[in-house]
């Protein structure tokens, strides 16, 4: 057969020829507060616990929500829950971020193969301190251990920045063609 065996299209809201919907398959993730807790958990390996922690720490510096005032940070994450970030503002001012309260990584217990879970730091917000959240404020879980989490929270956290200018792409298209049907060929 020279054609696709099945074709599932949920294009733009509508669903035709649907097989079974599998929009948000869960992922198996390991969530711990620190290396000790991880190492004590059955089936976890100390080296991997450490390595995951180191990776999450790096991601923490890169992707933790950043604030220019410690008060703003504490308003979101609670009294005494913020620390100074290594970054500085362009004018040399201090930058603050919440402390890393735990970390998430792929689990060796998920049955072999590659894990889709990106190792990353977890946080707790002031208004919902029981729940671990990702750097972009998505709820992950309220407990530690190896568990299923929605695949929407397992991707690598994005880096926030400040845009200085927009509109620098697309000008050649506007200049070159009057047709707006397609810019492809």
């Amino acid at each position, binding site marked *: 057969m020279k054609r696709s065996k099945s074709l599932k299209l949920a294009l*733009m809201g509508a669903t035709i020829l649907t097989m079974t919907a599998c929009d948000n398959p869960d992922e198996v993730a390991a969530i711990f507060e620190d290396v000790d807790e991880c190492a004590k958990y059955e089936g976890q390996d100390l080296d991997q616990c450490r390595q995951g922690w180191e990776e999450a720490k790096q991601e923490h510096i890169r992707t933790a929500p950043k604030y220019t005032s410690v008060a703003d940070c504490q308003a979101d994450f609670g009294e005494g829950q913020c620390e100074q970030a290594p970054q500085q503002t362009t004018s040399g001012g201090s930058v603050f971020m919440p402390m890393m309260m735990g970390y998430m990584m792929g689990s060796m217990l998920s049955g072999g193969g590659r894990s889709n879970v990106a190792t990353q730091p977890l946080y707790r917000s002031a208004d919902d301190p029981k729940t671990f959240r990702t750097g972009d404020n998505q709820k992950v879980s309220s407990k530690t251990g190896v568990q299923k989490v929605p695949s929407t929270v397992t991707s690598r956290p994005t880096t926030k920045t400040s845009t200085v200018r927009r509109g620098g792409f697309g000008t050649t298209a506007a200049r070159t063609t009057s047709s707006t049907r397609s810019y*492809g060929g």
Partner: protein
Amino acid sequence: MIRISIAERENWQDLAKEVGFQFHTIDGEKYWDESACYRFTLEQIENHIEDPTAELEAMCFQVVDRVVNDESLLEKLAIPPFYWDYVRSSWQNRDKNLYGRMDFSYDGTGPAKLLEYNADTPTSLYESAAFQWVWMEQAMEQGLIPPDCDQYNSIHEQLISAFSNMGVKGTLHMAACQGSLEDEGTVMYMEECATQAHVQTHFIHMEEIGIDAEGRLTDLQDNVITDLFKLYPWEWMMRDEFGEAMPKSGVRFIEPAWKSILSNKGILPLLWDMFEGHPNLLPAYFMEDAHKLSGAYAKKPIYSREGAGVSIHDDGKTLEEVKGPYGEEGHIVQALHPLPTFEGNHTVIGSWLVASQPCGLGIREDVSAITKDTSRFVPHVIRD
């Protein structure tokens, strides 16, 4: 290869509307046309389209390998010198490519002749991969065509597998220009494929992309863009204001920068130079060597899309011409191999590659000898 008139599915406009295929009719003229289909034998598909496509792709890689190491050729292809190192390293790093479409003149008796290679921003993807596939399933179900038809079309499956092999770690931003319903539709379809490959996507218009103080590209929520699929040609990105930020932006682009060589009509004379006489190639030259060509020829801007700026000449006369804004970067000439006509329609074969693997077919028809953006899309089947 024959053209067969058949009945349309009664409800196809509703279906198109339902799945968001909004550009099936253009300025009141039919674009998606299922009042006919083309029928191929398996041998025609495999021996005359699929195998030559794979072989040409391998030849194209040899051309890229030569061009990145020859600055006179990079100049001939009008790639701005600022990007030469960038294009070269994207090739040397073997940055993964997603898709492309080779256009052939082919009448069923072979050999198919390569007219051009849309290697960077090929369109008609959704029609080829999805709407054509659904058409056949339903046409068989409704008894409009025999129930034992097949189709050369695993594009959808291959796209999903290519997306999952891309190694996108975070979010894949996917961009099209503002104001093109067709391009946005195509990108939405690709987002669907990426999502099925468990790649997280985020749509943005090209015009909305920002830049931060460190020269990184950003989306409207101030997230740093790390992976960007762009339905927007490399040669334009290189001439846009933000273009010079690309090499240091840390962004992995899909298609990669080396596709700027393959999407250039200048590869046609280079292919001929390296593989003269190959059965799937037509003689082609840069303008300064145009005298080497005898007989009728097509003149094409090295940057051109959807037939714009292409003209057909014979004996000093211009026989046909599609006006277009392209051409300031130069032209090439290619021996004329007229498109076959089926019941008065000029037919061009689009042969799809995903991750450089041939995997499907889309047919466009036009009443004139040069297919262009309004040429109708006609589905096909394989049945011996």
